[in-house]
């Protein structure tokens, strides 16, 4: 059995014929080669596969690719523009918010979703909101710092953009 799927991924229109059981994460990794989307568990706990589906953070291991039909998907690969890191990516780098890098794409995508909903999140809010993303390397200390700094940078950019 196969089904046809059309969607937009990182700003590009994509069409494919797939097994309808295909998970979104497998479609992104295997069909599109977007291997920045990582698989860290099999119970939707670790969040390494987090992408944005129509602007909302989802765990792509828990979504069928067919559920993304017609939608806009944004992955870590679609964040930087013209080789320049997104302010949140830059903040992770500047705050040493990553070590092995495996949870990082999901963490950054969750952080962006968090900031969209809580532009001025305090530490407690950031920690609570990151509950769905596991990191085994950093102890979250520098991730929390990075999210704060990234949010501030995004706020500044938005203000500049509005001027």
């Amino acid at each position, binding site marked *: 059995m196969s089904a046809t799927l059309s969607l937009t991924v990182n700003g590009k229109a994509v069409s494919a014929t797939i097994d309808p059981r295909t998970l979104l994460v497998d479609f992104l990794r295997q069909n599109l080669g977007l291997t920045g989307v990582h698989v860290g568990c099999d119970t939707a706990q670790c969040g390494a596969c987090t992408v944005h589906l129509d602007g909302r953070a989802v765990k792509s291991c828990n979504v069928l690719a067919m559920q993304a039909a017609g939608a806009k998907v944004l992955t870590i690969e679609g964040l930087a523009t013209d080789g320049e890191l997104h302010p949140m990516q830059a903040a992770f780098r500047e705050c040493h918010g990553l070590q*092995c890098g495996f949870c990082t794409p999901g963490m950054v995508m969750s952080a962006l979703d968090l900031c969209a909903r809580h532009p001025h999140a305090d530490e407690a809010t950031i920690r609570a909101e990151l509950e769905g993303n*596991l990191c*085994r390397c950093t102890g979250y200390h520098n991730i929390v710092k990075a999210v704060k700094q990234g949010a501030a940078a995004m706020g500044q950019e938005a203000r500049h953009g509005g001027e």
Partner: protein
Amino acid sequence: MGANDKGVIGERVLRKEDARFLTGTGQYTDDVTLPHQAYATFLRSPHAHATIRGIDTASAAKAPGVLAVYTAADLKGVNGLPCGWLITGTDGKPMNEPPHPVLASGKVRYVGDPVAVVVAESITQAKDAAEMIEVDYDVLPAVVNPVDALKAGAPQIHAEAPGNKCYTWALGDKAAVDAAFAKAAHVTKIDIVNNRLIPNAIEPRAANAAYNAADDAYTLYVTSQNPHVERLLMTAFVLGLPEHKVRVIAPDVGGGFGSKIYLYPEETALVWAAKHVRRPIKWVAERSESFLADAHGRDHVTHAELALDKDGKFLALKVQTTAAMGAYLSTFASCIPTILYATLLAGQYTTPAIWCEVTAAFTNTAPVDAYRGAGRPEATYVVERIVHQAAVEMKIAQDDIRRRNFVRTFPYQTPVALLYDIGDYDACLDEAMRIADVKGFAARRDASAKQGKLRGLGYASYIEACGLAPSNIAGALGARAGLFEAGEVRVNPTGSVSVFTGSHSHGQGHETTFAQVVAARLGIPVENVDVVHGDTGRIPFGMGTYGSRSLSVGGTAIVKALDKVVAKGKKIAAHLLEAAESDIEFADGKFTVAGTDRSKAFGEVALAAYVPHNYPLDKLEPGLDETAFYDPTNFTFPAGTHICEVEIDPETGVVKVDRFSACDDFGNIINPMIVEGQVHGGVAQGIGQALLENCVYDRATGQLLTGSLMDYALPRADDLPSFEVATKVTPCTHNPLGAKGCGEAGAIGAPAALMNAVLDAMAARGIQHFDMPATPHRVWSALNAQRS
């Protein structure tokens, strides 16, 4: 930051590796897909202990897409997986070392033991086919607890290990210890369990093995912390392949924490099968498989006694530990609860007599091996828990009892074989107390009490031994491998530098730290240095990364290679400058004739080495490419004090880690940002052990009850506070970097600090004993058992 100066050492240089990780362009093993890729899955035992009466693979072999199905019967000529450390018991006999087959042979010995491998066109087809394999099991009684395993009448796991005993081993002077206890003013006794842990690097283990018939050679991509060791063990001991015909590549690796040191059955089976199937074969563990089949950590049961004089001076320490090995001996399993444990029992103290006896037991569980800290967290937990308890019993302040016993004269020979070269334990304790605001604790405790909460403060003054060495002494103690590291510094003709290291980075940031070391020495920008690791086809033979050794051992190998580069550069410069070699000085990237302004830049010398038109060809080879191997003369001894402050809600049993403060002495620091990150991560894992994590096997059936991230609680962002970290520096005396290592300290200090804080808080309710993890249910139960 001006990179072109020595200031690059000690700078918070941002990591070179981050650009790829932040943009999704890192390349982890699962990201490697080869032409004509096939996929494998392992059929694993559902039973903890059973005899295999037969395996029928016929229908699986005929299933759609299946390329091959293999069981132990097919692996003719394939040996078992070796153990890298021979422990000799107190009876003078070598440890019992039963075979560790690649695929279970005759018997299965833990839930998850691999029984068959299915190779198919797709992973779905492989999994579908694996379900069609019929294994006829005769289920046997199982034993999962190491103390139970040693009891008379326990189920026998291996014919080669009567009574399930691997060894009984001891260290120290028992007679001296007994004599000290006889004259002690006070004796403190504790019984503690060091809970079993599952490492859970966020990247699951994975492998992709390919065979190339044209040159009869293999390539293995694998999640490994030490690709050369992996290759040596696999080729020379298990598969009987020529070492040079196998290239092992450990690309970006998503965390290790010890669990990716070992040679595992899965990648070994894949390499063997790749030649038979003539297709590259990929296997990626699902998280459930990681729980079942990654090497676990800890799992000790210990009785300890500390003898003190009337002033609280430690007279002697006596420790008896039962340690689980799991069903088979993993690569370094045997040395963890012995060489890396008992030797650390002096801690930071002058305890004159110590005796430790360890019995290692086989159990029907996944193999147990090194997990972040590996033996040293277990030792610290024993020492710091018993010191805490002694202070409580003798009514001595926790900092005071430690100060009364600190080692202050170096070098210091402990009664358990180690020679501490340097340290300043008072400095770390003072600073930890300052950043923890210990002075304000009493007021905070009162404030908590007003709200019906229990607040406690706990100390852990830990020591660790890192950079395991030297090889000849380790060899005398049973090591079956060398413990050196290798580094190659290849200066390119244009003056940029490629460094090839045997160390492996899987989060530690070597690409940056090592580049800082090279840039500082050669006076070139950090950007001009690339660090290559993780590929046996490119790097010299090295031992990889474990035991916080990368900078102190791997970094030193690079420094030694740099010495050779500079020495040769001086010869070349002397020729170019028409001066005597002895008059050439090298500093700030320039070779200068001493006392003159005549100089040649490093880049000019590099170019001359590769375009040797004006060059002393009669005396000197062209090129500027040097390799060094470094075998340390001693361990390094990072040490520090961690202080944890918790608040317990007795109504719910929830333990909130309110403050965690660490002051560590890692010797000289190259990149403080990276060092702090290592401490944060280690502390989080230590807090995880003490607060949340617990691997539980059902005692009756041997089933793993904590087999997913929904049952086994990894710390999440909202379980942890932000940390206060500081460092003090006493440079290591025996390596040129003065570095000691920082990777494991957090995981070593944190569990004892946290549990001492929990006990301090619960002391108000008369509780003096409590085992990890301090989960709400366990804490609530303890408080309420006391109440009733």
